[in-house]
């Protein structure tokens, strides 16, 4: 068990290094001068040189990478070129906003996804199965940014029930768990929940069907266990994988929320990435991608470790 966890961490460390390297390389692949967005066209050579030294762009790539990593490990991701504020603070605020959205969406998706999956897996080839499978195909096929637009059209533009954009009433700075704020969360969270819902429902359906076919289920039934008793055993067998898929989906949503955040003007990481890209704010871009990717890697690690404690067969393999 412990050996498995150590092995899993040892495997993750080089990947984290690789991810950091890719984030760094990505930004330096970008064509053009990184300071072009803040330098006035008639800036003197002196000023250009000064700024380049200030941001460290005058040093060699390995040197820049090493100092970037060193500072990142201490929680300093540099200074945004466009706003002059610390990248770490901006990213953390945005991650908080996105995490809130993604957690609610994953929860909704998991709830309905497992419901559909169980019904479909239990009553295979019935109309309920076909309906559930159809819903899950829709879930994985729908362009979520379009679904967001359609929900805005119906519930904001036509019915006027819910706000179309933003993360709270205008003027309110911080998030609060009251209806004034929550109603801003409804549409983006519903839109986002469709993705994990489709995937979780597919996974759960396959797992339930597979479990029901196993001999121990026949044995339990022969022993005279009630349907509910058998159901508890099925849940026990399905839960580790379903929870693992849910964990991974949370990571995907966190990294993939940019399109939905754009539709709803949600002030999260997607919004931050978008402005970093269009303002060519390299430190901000680098920092946001690094934080999101690292979060995903760590989430993967956590999911694997939790799964191995729930299902000891994994660590023995």
């Amino acid at each position, binding site marked *: 068990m412990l050996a498995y966890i150590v092995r899993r961490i040892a495997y993750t460390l080089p*990947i984290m290094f*690789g991810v950091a390297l890719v984030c760094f390389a990505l930004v330096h692949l970008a064509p053009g001068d990184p300071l072009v967005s803040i330098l006035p066209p008639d800036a003197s050579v002196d000023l250009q040189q000064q700024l380049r030294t200030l941001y460290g762009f005058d040093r060699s790539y390995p040197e820049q990478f090493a100092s970037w990593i060193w500072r990142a490990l201490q929680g300093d991701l540099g200074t945004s070129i466009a706003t002059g504020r610390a990248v770490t603070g901006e990213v953390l605020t945005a991650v908080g906003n996105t995490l809130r959205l993604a957690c609610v969406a994953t929860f909704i998706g998991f709830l309905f996804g497992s419901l559909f999956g169980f019904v479909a897996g239990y009553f295979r080839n019935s109309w309920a199965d076909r309906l559930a499978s159809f819903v899950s195909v829709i879930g994985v096929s729908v*362009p979520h940014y379009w679904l967001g637009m359609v929900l805005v059209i119906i519930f904001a533009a036509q019915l006027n029930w819910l706000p179309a954009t933003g993360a709270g009433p205008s003027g309110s700075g911080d998030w609060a768990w009251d209806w004034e704020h929550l109603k801003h969360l409804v549409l983006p969270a519903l839109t986002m929940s469709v993705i994990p819902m489709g995937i979780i429902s597919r996974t759960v359906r396959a797992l339930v069907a597979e479990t029901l076919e196993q001999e121990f289920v026949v044995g339990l039934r022969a022993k005279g266990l009630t349907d509910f008793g058998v159901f508890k055993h099925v849940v026990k067998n399905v839960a580790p994988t379903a929870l693992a898929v849910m964990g991974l989906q949370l990571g995907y949503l966190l990294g993939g929320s940019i399109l939905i955040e*754009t539709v709803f003007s949600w002030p999260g990481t997607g919004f931050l990435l978008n402005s970093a890209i269009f303002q060519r704010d390299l430190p901000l871009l680098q920092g946001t991608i690094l934080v999101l990717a690292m979060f995903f890697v760590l989430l993967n690690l956590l999911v694997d470790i939790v799964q191995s404690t729930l299902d000891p067969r994994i660590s023995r393999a």
Partner: protein
Amino acid sequence: MDIAVDASKVPAPIDAQGPGYWGSVWRRFRTNSVAMVAAAVVLLLILLALFGPFITPADPYKASMLSRLKPIGTEGHLLGTDELGRDMLSRLIVGARLSLFMGIVPVLAAFAIGSALGILAGYAGGAINTVIMRTIDVFYAFPSVLLAIALSGTLGAGIFNALLSLTIVFIPQIARVAESVTTQVRSRDYVEAARASGAGAFTIVRVHVLGNVLGPIFVYATSLIAVSMILASGLSFLGLGVKPPEPEWGLMLNTLRTAIYTQPWIAALPGLMIFVTSMSFNMLSDGLRTAMDVKQ
């Protein structure tokens, strides 16, 4: 495509009267009505992409300030007009070409490169496997939407950069599948037998490995087309893909966002096209998987 060529490499069935591998795949596929409908829709979309520009009722580029955002069913504009007064029906038809191109090409490119890398890693094993697969793990460690947007965001907007970014996103996914299938096939008895009878590595891969691994990899790749369609249009939706005034569904969705309060259903049309396309590809891929009996 590659698959059609591979049919000849599949060993002839013992029963010479039998339908053969592809014959039986087709027989199973044919009885799946959902997959057949999806295949018909995909065929129709491909025909639209090929011949769309010849059947449009109006010029898809011709703007008219006087007839902006006309509702659906307007005389001469069956599906209304967009924010610059261009005929929606014509733009949706012509848009099929770029949209499908942007969705399918990255998967094809990644299928070629990813299979090659995965088969090489799986067959060679050892240090070659470690180098290839650990590098791929790094790219696999990024959520795909994040990687696609980060890459095309730094490379800059444009069709080529978007295609390149999406290809890079799909290579690790395909290579992982290719590597695992190849590793399985490599340890089979017939590969062992071929090696014992003195066949070279290249011959073994060409004759015994390719024919057995390309099918499952191909099925997996087809399931990525739906994802690719959504991502490619998503890049254009963000302004990172196709540039105006080219008709592409994701870009049209973006420029029509301003119209959701005035002509909401026109604004939603391009997204409906992306939805229908990606759903058809998903169902087609599911049907293929069942018909070819690939387990994943």
